[in-house]
């Protein structure tokens, strides 16, 4: 039950910010002038992985605060995060969306963390070693880490925590990609050994997943105790979460604010205006359409980072007419990716090449020619496919924001290729259970996985639970398994190249674009680390007041 | 010579018709009213009496306009006077007593609050004074329990009492003039006489002037010093009451004075099976018992009149016979055939053979149907006549009820009361019934119009051998057309028999009350009757009083 005296009064906070608004705005403006030069921006951004692939065109949108500002301790940080619900639960097994993921990383840590370049770096695990064929991994735990309840972190805790998500009777969303793990055992007070049933080079990536937060052995999952930088004080599902700083947090240079209030702001407009009025300092999921406007607004800054998240239109390769690859190709050639990126993402994203591996991924096959909008080819393949009558596409904005608009654009593009696309707007409610993977042609979204392997095995392997395009190619499966075990990077790169090629050529996915992650913040906060994967989920412990 | 309180000169008032174009209601009437004088305004319905009466308060109904002329009250010009001024004089210098007190009292407030309102609001009275005055007047108008009477709500008081309360309301601020607009028309005879008497001596001793509007000459004769006769918005004749009664000049007035009542030909009782017979009927609305063991018999081609004051159960009897209200016990026979109690069980033909004609013609006709549709429906419904055939018959029926064929296309709103009633009769005739039940068919009509309707009914009876169950509380009518009379009192039959038997003494006391209450067209009738009743009470004879006291 919430303790009134211990909670901070947001409405007062609102009024304060309201009164001091103008001052801060001028402040903001000055900041701009002082370091507004693009150079400063770019320098700041180089730390961000995205720099590798981001055209200077986006540089203008780089937030000033990325320049190494001296972090200040203290303050009451307010986050406005979407996709929260009254049904939310603190049990990481049930985490599916932004809000709980961000709350999760406030109270808990994983064994592994991913850095700006999507490299696994130690978190609760100090170091790790695979055996020769990567079927057995040994993780050394960090010493002297204590849970919020004062208990010391041990191997047993890790085993308990991981097993919550695997094996018989698990209700976790993570089961899907933990199947590779045969056994987890404590092989020492702070040493954990993972036994896999096949060679797997990417295990550390997996262990960085937001589900796999570590709690003490036998902990109650509905009120988990963590090792994180913040201790949850009040949790009102679908309303707000109040967390106080963990006084003896082990991690250096993190968890600056004294307390974090995470407000559930599902409504985009509400979120945006909350940021504008200073009711919150940081919000997620900006609407690409309004980013420009927001940036222009005084005292605002925008975090814009490329991600592995991609929008796609899966076609069921097991149902006519999509069994026909010519039709699939026609539909792939028939979409003007540039246009979609421009109109739907307003440029905050990259064109996709009909395979799910993002361009910053070390295994990204850059040499596969980018598929461009080509009405003639589309016409050609469509004729070749000999399909008659319109194609029906089931969409809802539940798939991804702007899905309906994107589909509308797609319709336009196809029209120019002489292909008629009928849009069926499906109810947002229950979209994932009765449209996705049910209707032959629909809209879908992938948040992206840390590694090429994860992404491909999750949605393209024949037996994958979420093989949304029902595309089944034994050759692909074999190669994928080989690639997993392959420790020679060069060979491995080649294998992934071939896999991406198959999907690109023959797969049942139209993947027109990868979206950037867009966050909005007030000028007086800074510190968000720009990781393309799991982007922004750790904002709680990263952000600080300048 | 005493000065005139009210002077109206060449007043023109227009109203707006259905389609909106204006038409004259009052066409240049002039009028003088002296202090302490009672001026009677009489004329048929629609003559413009109320309009004129209202005009003397400088008021025109919504849709009406005082276009031309002058209305001077104690020297002040009211026509075109600012609302502020009008407000100060209304209710204080000149007061209005409406036709239906039941409708004119606000159901939401206690009587007293409404009665003293005008006096307190702008009559310069304190509440206490006004209350005291009101109580004095309650007593004066012989209202029960004057102390507590004002505490009641309108619905807790009988019609007659309400009408008197309304008079009190008018008198409290001691106005110079009171306009009475048919204050007794809504009451039945036995009550009417009481109220009339009360009003009369109230006016006398308060020494006010009054404008007394009615369409019953016999009534106005009892109370007015002078009488003005109006006919569609124009003055027909004006003069002292005696002169109007005894030496009327205008033809129209003559007609009014000797409304010679139609005399029905005496028909011998026919021995055949009666066309309608009612045996031992008991009926109730929910728990409220209304009819107790009612038995009567209507022979072929004859007329049975059912008389009794309001609330005595006359209409209820009609409802039982027609099947609208299934009786608790008792039987109904139609020409030797027993009728089911409930409407639903009766056959189409049984329904056809009994037709009902209502008291209020304007609520008995669907305002959104043309006369042709209204009369034509039974023809189609019962006999399947359509198109030209149907039209032909409709026209014949209109002819039978003495209405021009041109009316077929009109809507009820475009007809006068009498004409509406004729349409109702035509509609009933269209079904070619054997028994026709007439519930107060004439009581909403003026004397002459009523006469016309009665004649019509008699003629039809002679021609078609119809039998009438004739419900009324108007003895004059009864005298005119009944063969047999049934007197009802509080749901029971107190006396019944051949007309001449019932009408010749010795009467049942209630019959006597009824008979003696019918106004007669001679000066001083009212005072005489009342005096007589007092005398007989003094002699200790049993004299019934109207349920209203």
């Amino acid at each position, binding site marked *: 039950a919430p303790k*009134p*005296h211990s909670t901070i*009064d*947001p*409405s*007062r906070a609102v009024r304060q910010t309201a*009164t001091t608004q103008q001052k801060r705005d001028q402040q903001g403006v000055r900041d701009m002038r002082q370091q507004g030069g693009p150079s400063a921006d770019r320098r700041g951004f180089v730390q961000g992985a995205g720099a590798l692939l981001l055209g200077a065109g986006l540089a203008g949108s780089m937030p000033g605060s990325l320049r190494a500002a001296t972090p200040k301790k203290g303050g009451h940080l307010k986050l406005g995060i979407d996709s929260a619900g009254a*049904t939310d*639960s603190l049990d990481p097994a*049930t985490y*599916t*969306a932004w809000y709980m993921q961000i709350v999760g990383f406030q109270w808990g840590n994983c064994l592994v963390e991913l850095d700006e370049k999507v490299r696994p770096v130690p978190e609760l695990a100090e170091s790790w070693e695979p055996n020769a064929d990567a079927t057995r991994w040994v993780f050394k735990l960090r010493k002297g880490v204590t849970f919020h309840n004062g208990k010391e972190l041990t191997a047993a805790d890790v085993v308990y925590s991981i097993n919550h998500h695997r094996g018989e*009777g*698990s*209700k*976790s*969303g*993570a*089961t899907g990609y933990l199947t590779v793990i045969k056994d987890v055992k404590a092989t020492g007070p702070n040493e954990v050994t993972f036994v896999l049933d096949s060679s797997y080079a990417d295990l550390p990536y997996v262990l960085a997943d937001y589900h796999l937060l570590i709690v003490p052995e036998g902990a109650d999952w*509905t009120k988990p105790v963590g090792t994180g930088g913040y201790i949850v004080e009040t949790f*009102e*599902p*679908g*309303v707000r979460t109040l967390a106080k700083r963990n006084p003896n947090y082990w991690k250096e240079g993190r968890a600056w604010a004294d307390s974090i209030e995470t*407000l*559930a*702001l599902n409504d985009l*407009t*509400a979120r945006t*205006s*909350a940021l*504008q*009025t200073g*009711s919150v300092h940081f919000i997620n999921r900006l609407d690409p359409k309004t980013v420009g406007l927001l940036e222009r607004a005084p005292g605002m800054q925008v975090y814009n980072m490329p991600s592995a998240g991609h929008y796609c239109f899966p076609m069921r390769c097991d149902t006519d007419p999509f069994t026909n690859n010519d039709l699939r190709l026609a539909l792939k050639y028939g979409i003007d990716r540039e246009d979609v990126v421009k109109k739907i993402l307003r440029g905050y994203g990259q064109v996709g090449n009909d395979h799910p591996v993002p361009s910053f991924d070390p295994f990204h096959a850059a040499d596969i020619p980018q598929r461009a909008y080509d009405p003639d080819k589309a016409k050609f393949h469509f004729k070749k496919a000999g399909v008659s009558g319109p194609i029906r596409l089931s969409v809802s904005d539940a798939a991804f924001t702007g899905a309906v608009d994107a589909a509308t654009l797609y319709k336009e593009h196809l029209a120019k290729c002489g292909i008629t696309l009928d849009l069926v707007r499906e109810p947002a409610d*229950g979209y*994932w*259970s*009765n449209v996705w993977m049910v209707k032959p042609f629909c809209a879908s*979204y992938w948040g992206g996985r840390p590694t090429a392997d994860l992404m491909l095995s999750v949605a393209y392997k024949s037996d994958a*639970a*979420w093989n949304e395009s029902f595309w089944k190619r034994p050759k692909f499966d074999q190669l994928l398994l080989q690639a997993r075990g392959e420790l020679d990077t060069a060979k491995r790169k080649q294998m992934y190249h071939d896999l991406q090629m198959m999907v690109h050529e023959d797969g049942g996915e139209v993947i027109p674009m990868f979206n950037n992650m867009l966050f909005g913040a007030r000028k007086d906060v800074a510190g968000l680390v720009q990781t393309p994967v799991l982007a922004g989920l750790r904002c709680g412990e990263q952000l600080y007041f300048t | 010579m005493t000065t005139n309180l009210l002077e109206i000169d060449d007043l023109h008032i227009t109203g707006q018709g259905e389609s909106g174009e204006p038409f004259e209601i009052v066409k240049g009437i002039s009028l003088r009213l002296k202090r302490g004088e009672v001026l009677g305004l009489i004329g048929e319905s629609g003559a413009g009496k109320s309009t004129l009466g209202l005009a003397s*308060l400088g*008021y025109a109904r919504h849709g009406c306009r005082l276009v031309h002329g002058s209305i001077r009250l104690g020297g002040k010009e009211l026509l075109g006077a600012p609302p502020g001024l009008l407000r100060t004089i*209304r*209710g204080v210098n000149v007061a209005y007593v409406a036709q*239906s007190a039941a*409708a*004119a*009292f*606000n*159901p*939401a*407030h206690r009587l007293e609050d409404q009665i003293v*309102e*005008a006096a307190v*609001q*702008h009559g310069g009275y304190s509440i206490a004074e006004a209350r005291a005055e009101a109580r004095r007047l309650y007593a004066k108008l012989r209202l029960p329990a004057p102390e507590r009477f004002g505490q009641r*709500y309108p619905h*807790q008081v009988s019609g007659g009492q309400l009408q008197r309360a309304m008079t009190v*309301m008018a008198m409290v601020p001691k106005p110079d003039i009171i306009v009475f607009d048919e204050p007794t028309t809504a009451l039945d005879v036995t009550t009417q006489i009481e109220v009339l008497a009360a009003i009369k001596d109230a006016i006398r001793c308060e020494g006010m002037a009054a404008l007394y509007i009615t369409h019953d000459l016999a009534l106005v004769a009892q109370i007015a010093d002078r009488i003005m006769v109006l006919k569609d918005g124009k003055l027909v004749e004006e003069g002292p009451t005696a002169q109007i009664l005894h030496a009327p000049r205008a033809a129209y007035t003559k007609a009014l004075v000797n409304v010679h009542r139609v005399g029905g030909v005496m028909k011998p009782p026919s021995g055949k099976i009666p066309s309608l017979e009612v045996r031992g009927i008991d009926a109730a609305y929910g728990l409220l018992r209304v009819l107790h063991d009612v038995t009567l018999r209507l022979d072929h081609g004859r007329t049975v009149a059912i008389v009794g004051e309001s609330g005595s159960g006359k209409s209820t009897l009609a409802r039982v016979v027609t099947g609208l209200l299934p009786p608790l016990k008792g039987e109904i026979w139609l020409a030797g055939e027993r009728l089911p109690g409930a409407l639903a069980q009766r056959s189409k033909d049984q329904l056809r053979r009994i037709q009902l004609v209502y008291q209020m013609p304007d609520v008995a006709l669907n305002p959104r149907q043309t006369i042709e549709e209204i009369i034509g429906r039974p023809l189609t419904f019962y006999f399947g006549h359509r198109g030209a055939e149907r039209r032909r018959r409709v026209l014949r029926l209109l002819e039978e009820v003495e209405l021009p064929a041109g009316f077929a296309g009109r809507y009820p709103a475009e007809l006068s009361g009498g004409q509406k009633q004729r349409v109702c009769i035509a509609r009933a005739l269209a079904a070619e019934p054997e028994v026709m039940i007439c519930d107060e068919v004439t009581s909403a009509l003026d004397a002459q119009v009523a006469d016309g309707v009665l004649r019509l009914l008699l003629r039809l009876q002679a021609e078609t051998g119809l039998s009438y169950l004739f419900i009324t509380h108007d003895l004059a009518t009864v005298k005119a057309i009944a063969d047999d009379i049934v007197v009802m009192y509080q749901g029971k039959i107190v006396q019944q028999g051949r007309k001449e038997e019932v009408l010749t003494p010795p009467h049942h006391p209630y019959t006597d009350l009824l008979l003696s209450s019918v106004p007669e067209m001679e000066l001083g009738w009212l005072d005489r009757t009342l005096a007589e009743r007092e005398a007989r009470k003094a002699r200790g004879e049993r004299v019934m009083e109207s349920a209203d006291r």
Partner: protein
Amino acid sequence: MRAHPLLKLVAQRLALGLGTLLVVSVLIFIGTQLLPGDLAQAILGQSATPEAVANIRAELGLDRPAHIRYLDWLFGFLRGDFGMSLANKQPIAEMIAGRLTNTLFLAGVAAFVAVPVAVSLGILAARFRETWIDKTISIVTLAAISMPEFFIGYLLIYIFAVKLLVAPSLASIYPGMALPEKLGAVALPVATLSLVVIAHMMRMTRAAIVNVMASPYIEMAELKGLSRWRITVRHALPNALSPIINVVVLNLAYLVVGVVVVEVVFVYPGMGQLMVDHVAKRDVPVVQTCGMIFAATYILLNMTADILSILANPRLRHPK
């Protein structure tokens, strides 16, 4: 004798109300069953794997036949035990208690503002009927109702929160907050709701009064030389009460039951959002309970309306 018919009525309506409630509960349950997908799928969303789904179903007993689950719920409910939320294992009673108070608070404040305003506007419009005042009032109110409520909300936020900085854009309230602060927090949602409901009530009030204005006792009042105001307020209004009461109550019901959108826009933790979220997650027991509460509110309010309009009628208040 006096209150007797009234008591009878109340009893009768209560009985009927309970009957209706039962039916509603059945209908809602059937409804939730008709909805595609179930809690298990909904919880896991896109990351649902068959085995995980199966496990959840088993744990929550979603594999039992529907009627059994309904009866379980019903008897629990009758015993006053609302059970646990399937989605996050919280006791429903607790979960709802807080939200319900919030909802009632918002509705209460909104009603407190809107009803008097609406009725006075109605009276004003009736008093100055057919004048520019009347027309202005009706046009403005009409304009107000013809905007989607979420949009009115956005407008107000933009004007008062973003531009003028006089009100918070988030109506976040929580236990232990002082009343004035609470009021400050809900200022905008209240304004929005008021704008939405005022028009309807105002128009009905006007219509009812205008309707009464046609009756003879109003003419009589004019003939008594009373002022237009006195006639409108003292003579017309009391006789127009029952239709006014009815429309007011209808709108009160709306304020309690129909404000989901406003809650979302202003991020107000009320029943509406609670239910939407649980419907989305197919969390049947919670949906059921919310549905019951909404239905009960509606039925109770209707009953009050009937009783009030009886009380407003002197014939029934003071029988002969």
